[in-house]
């Protein structure tokens, strides 16, 4: 690298060699070692603009803006989200209650045992229905 190329790089990338393209950093250091005064003068000149750029006002971060952005972020997934959760829970509860009631009714003999129903409806009726219902069954 010669001084002219060094100057062009300092103009473009500034005085901080870490910003320079990686493959040019080592040759630049070699040049600094070889021509310290000239190279340093070019870096000093570039650093004036670097410093001026750093003086540019930093943005003032608005807490209101931060809150707005966060409020628009995704919401966590819920196990029972909104109405679907309540509807599902209610449905499950009523099914469970119905099943308990049916088991209770069977155990109390309120429903006929399907296994006892035969191919003869009249005989089944006579056997299973109360005596007062006999007239309705034919």
């Amino acid at each position, binding site marked *: 690298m010669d001084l002219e190329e060094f100057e062009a790089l300092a103009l473009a990338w500034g005085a901080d060699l870490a910003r320079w393209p990686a493959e040019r950093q080592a040759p630049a250091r070699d040049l600094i070692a070889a021509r310290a005064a000239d190279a340093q003068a070019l870096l000093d000149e570039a650093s004036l603009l670097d410093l*001026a750029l750093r*003086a540019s006002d930093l943005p003032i971060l608005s807490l209101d803006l931060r809150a707005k952005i966060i409020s628009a972020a*995704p919401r966590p997934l819920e196990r029972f989200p909104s109405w679907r959760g309540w509807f599902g829970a209610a449905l499950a509860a009523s099914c469970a209650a119905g099943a308990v009631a049916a088991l209770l009714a069977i155990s109390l003999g309120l429903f006929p045992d399907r296994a006892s129903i035969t191919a003869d409806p009249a005989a089944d009726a006579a056997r299973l229905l109360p005596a007062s219902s006999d007239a309705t069954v034919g």
Partner: protein
Amino acid sequence: MTSGDAESEDDLVARAGQGDAAAIGLLVTRKLPRILSLARRMLADVAEAEDVAQETFLRAWKAAPSWRPGKAKFDTWLHRVALNLCYDRLRRRRRWAQDPPDRPDDGPAPDRGLHAQDIGRRVDHALAALPPRQREAIVLIHYQELTGAVASDLMGISVEALESLLARGRRTLRANLADIWRAD
């Protein structure tokens, strides 16, 4: 940025996509100042910059649930989105080249040197007067502290073309701000 940082950032984005409040807060804390800084320097307008920052994050929240780690760096992706939004607004203004924003003359007072705040205003003014591509190059390298490779990729140009934009931009700034160091 180390690969460990990149992994943790991908992890943050994934968690944010699932609505993890802590990840969302941390991501906003880390990225909002950078995006706001980028937009403010590109647009030279605080309100517009805040709009751009907000819209950038809205897009990020949409992308977060399906974000694929390793496909692109989130920070680079966020810069790309913000820059596109800035250019949309600059195009809408239709006046950047011929008619830079009206600003008061922030030149030094005749009886005193320049204070840091004065210099900051002068620099903001000089940056805003640069052609947008030169301004973008300087903002990405000097303020966003991206590497030349990342910045040139973001801008869709070669590193050599980026270098040329930087050199022209810095030369103009140096000429326009020369009185700053002459005043010392």
